[in-house]
């Protein structure tokens, strides 16, 4: 049934895409480091940054095409839709996140310099795919239905969108913390401590996007000299954040996750170090991130995009359950998991228009919702006995 040659070429294409994503991620971060942010928070790449950005875009696009070929050949090898086990699903999640990032975040909304983080999410998802690798093969009868195209593809689309949304939410929380701390220290000492020491002429800081430009203001990134003041506040933002906590928190979270799921010390070490590096990159990137308000708006737009798709996925799942098992809802762990994920994203959307919850409160619900999504996907499939556990890995 399964064609071993096609399956093998699918695997090598996967590896090629994996490597090009990692390189593209590195180049995107390089681009981020060569970005300048003006006082009003307009990020602008330097020449080296623009070149790096173009290269990274090419690499990521090429990687996505190779990845698509890998997914298609996998489907041809198994003679079915290529999303019936966790390897295939994780692989497509990564692909979806990259494509959504490239088309919507970078092209349409112009946040290309955040793509390094999106690619990091994709790389993590692909790593989990590698750890959950299963040979191409047919599926059990319960999965053999046209609903697998409808329900599973909707769930995949929504999940990849939510990966990108999580990136935006997490970056918002980081940037917001930095902005708040800088604002507080300004209020206490009457000036940005570090930034002011380095650059004595620091002008209106931390105004974010919302503030009006001061009279006679010129865009500092336009001129070659005299744009030192533009960096005063952003650099202070980095100084305001702990360089220890940033690698430490992702390290602990990711290492614990990998250790619990795969019980493999080597994988734990590698994933933990990668997460720590990512954390450090985030810490370094804080000054170059768009203002918190913009990141918040970005996260909202992405979640508002993914939520109806997720709603549809849950509904289609209920209809499929009716066809396959004779009941649309049985409080099976996968069903309850997708339901609490849905509740949390619904909570996020409501929190964003509730006084007292707007901003950080809503963002934390968004983070929880993403954690719930991951739990629904990994923990419920791997650890909890339920009807969906036939899906196994």
């Amino acid at each position, binding site marked *: 049934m399964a064609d071993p040659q096609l399956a093998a070429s699918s695997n090598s294409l996967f590896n090629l895409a994996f490597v090009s994503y990692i390189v593209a991620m590195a180049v995107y971060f390089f681009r981020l480091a060569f970005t300048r942010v003006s006082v009003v928070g307009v990020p602008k790449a330097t020449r080296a940054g623009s070149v790096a950005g173009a290269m990274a875009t090419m690499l990521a696009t090429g990687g996505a095409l190779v990845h698509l070929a890998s997914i298609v050949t996998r489907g041809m090898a198994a003679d079915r839709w290529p999303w019936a086990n966790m390897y295939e699903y994780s692989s497509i999640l990564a692909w979806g996140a990259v494509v959504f990032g490239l088309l919507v975040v970078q092209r349409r909304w112009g946040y290309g310099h955040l793509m390094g983080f999106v690619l990091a999410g994709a790389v993590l998802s692909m790593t989990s795919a590698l750890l959950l690798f299963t040979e191409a093969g047919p599926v059990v009868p319960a999965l053999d239905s046209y609903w697998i195209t409808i329900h599973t593809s909707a769930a995949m689309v929504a999940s990849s969108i939510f990966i990108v949304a999580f990136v935006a939410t997490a970056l918002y929380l980081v940037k917001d913390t930095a902005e708040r701390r800088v604002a507080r220290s300004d209020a206490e000492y009457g000036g940005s401590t570090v930034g002011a020491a380095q650059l004595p002429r620091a002008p209106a800081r931390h105004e974010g996007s919302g503030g009006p430009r001061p009279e006679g203001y010129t865009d500092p990134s336009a001129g070659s000299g005299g744009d030192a003041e533009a960096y005063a506040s952003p650099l202070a933002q980095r100084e305001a954040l702990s360089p220890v906590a940033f690698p430490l928190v992702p390290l602990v979270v990711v290492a614990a996750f990998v250790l619990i799921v795969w019980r493999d010390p080597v994988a734990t070490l590698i994933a933990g170090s990668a997460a720590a590096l990512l954390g450090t990159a985030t810490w370094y990137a804080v000054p170059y991130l768009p203002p918190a308000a913009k990141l918040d708006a970005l996260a909202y737009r992405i979640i508002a995009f993914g939520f109806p798709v997720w709603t549809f996925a849950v509904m289609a799942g209920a209809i499929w359950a009716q066809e396959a098992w004779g009941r649309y809802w049985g409080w099976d762990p996968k069903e309850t998991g997708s339901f609490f994920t849905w509740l949390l994203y619904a909570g996020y959307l409501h929190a964003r228009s509730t006084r007292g*919850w707007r901003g950080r409160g809503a963002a934390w619900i968004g983070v929880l919702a993403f954690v719930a999504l991951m739990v629904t996907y990994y923990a419920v499939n791997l650890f909890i006995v339920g009807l969906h556990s036939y899906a196994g890995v």
Partner: protein
Amino acid sequence: MTQTTAATDTRPRESGPRGSRLPEIPGPGETFARAWKALRRMSTALKLLLALTVAVILGTFVPQEPVIPTTVAEWRLGTSGPGEATAAAFDALGLFDVFGAWWFNALVVLLVTSLTGCLVPRIRAFVRTARRRPAAGRNLARLTHHVELRTPLPPGEALDRAETAVTRRRFRRRRIAADDAPGGAAQLATERGHAREGGSIAFHISFYVLVTGAMIGHTFGFTGQVNVVEGASFADTRIAYDLAQPGRWFPFAAHRGFVVELEDFSASYLETPSGTDPGAEAPGDLVTGGALSTFMPTDFSSRVTISEGGEVVREEEVRVNDPLSHDGVSLYQVRFGLAPQIEVRTTDGTVLYTDSVILTEAGGFVWQGVAPVARTEVDRQVALELILLPDAGFNEQGLPVSRSPEPRNPRLAAVVWVGELGLERNRPPSEFQRDRGQQLPQPVILELGETAQVQGLPLEIEFTGLPYWSGFQVSQEPGRWVLLAGAGLMLIGLVPSLYAYRRRVWVEAHPDGEGSRVVLAGVALHRKGVFAEAFEGLADDVAHRLGAVEAPAPEPHLETTERKA
């Protein structure tokens, strides 16, 4: 809310004397009013939503009795899970049946009450605003988005042309004559985007529809489980089902009474050799080495016929994902197994028992079940405990195993029990009283078609056949269409509630010499960034239609106001 509290505090109270320092105790009416007010607050609804999420998370990670009763039983006994004491605590809190617990239902009721409390005023307000015609605009030049144009057309004509532009964008419109308009010039007031609030209301109403559908299904529906052996049949009547779950008001008469016969059943597997010994395949060969293959069912299906009044009206295949619907009753393929056919006779030839025994899988392709052979004499009953190996062989330790789930080389072992087994009770035979009976020392082992004597009893057992049995779920779901409608309403409401946005656009035409001076202005309540772009497009379109040029005067003003937004 703080304002409201302050307002109530300054009001003189009847409950306490004026100037008293005692804390005021609100009366029951006031307490209720306060609770109602609190319940209607969005932040309360949000907290309830989060509490519901926590409950659902608990229901995911603690095994649920209605879903997997065996695991729950193990947790209670302490054989698995966090231990007996924790299980007892879980029991006290109702954590083994979260979705049936009173506190979960209370939470749902609170949330629904809160939702109703929010929704009723919103619907009223929505109906009011949706009926109202677009309002006239005042001080258009002060709005964030505004453009002034000069056109050679007279005001009436200019407004007509502008109206075509907004009509194409599906705005609601109202023409206001110069005498009635606040700016003293003829105006076209337009509005769009009620779909946002309407969609949001539809989305929230869909919950009521979904709950109604689920309740209809629960109250008037029916679910039954039935296992049928190949060649046998059952009728859609209450007694036919092994396990029946009728809704509270499901009428007896709603059973259709048609007869379903299982013509035959087929199962196919995909075999993946997981061992290193590919030579261990020969069927019929009892002694094999090497590891067992893994088998994955690829397809299983039942061919059934449906008869009404003795006549076959339908013949169809039922498989997973492909249920059969007949006369409002759905038949789902849910499980299957093997049902060895045995005949037990006394040595003088009297047939004591002849039937197919439905076995259940005990793991490792081994099937188990009990045949109640003789139950008339209460103190001398006979039962056979059957163990079936569909593809018998021996493993490396020399123990009997089944190498595949397919009946390639079936062996049936029958352990004979005699004594006061309690088979006459209204219980499944597998729950016979082992402690009161006596197990004969030597089990009978049979190949297909073989007959063997029972040692120590004047009985012989014949293994006459090995058909499959097929397990169906039979349901009547009267609330199904309501549920589908609710789901549809939710999606239809959700999309506009996130993407539609309310905005108003006004066009005012002042006579200006031969032609007119036209002011185009707009304001959006949500998605202001999107509106900014849309307004530009509209302004260009209107200018083009009017053959107009932009009036230069207000340009710098426009720049500064736009930056603020």
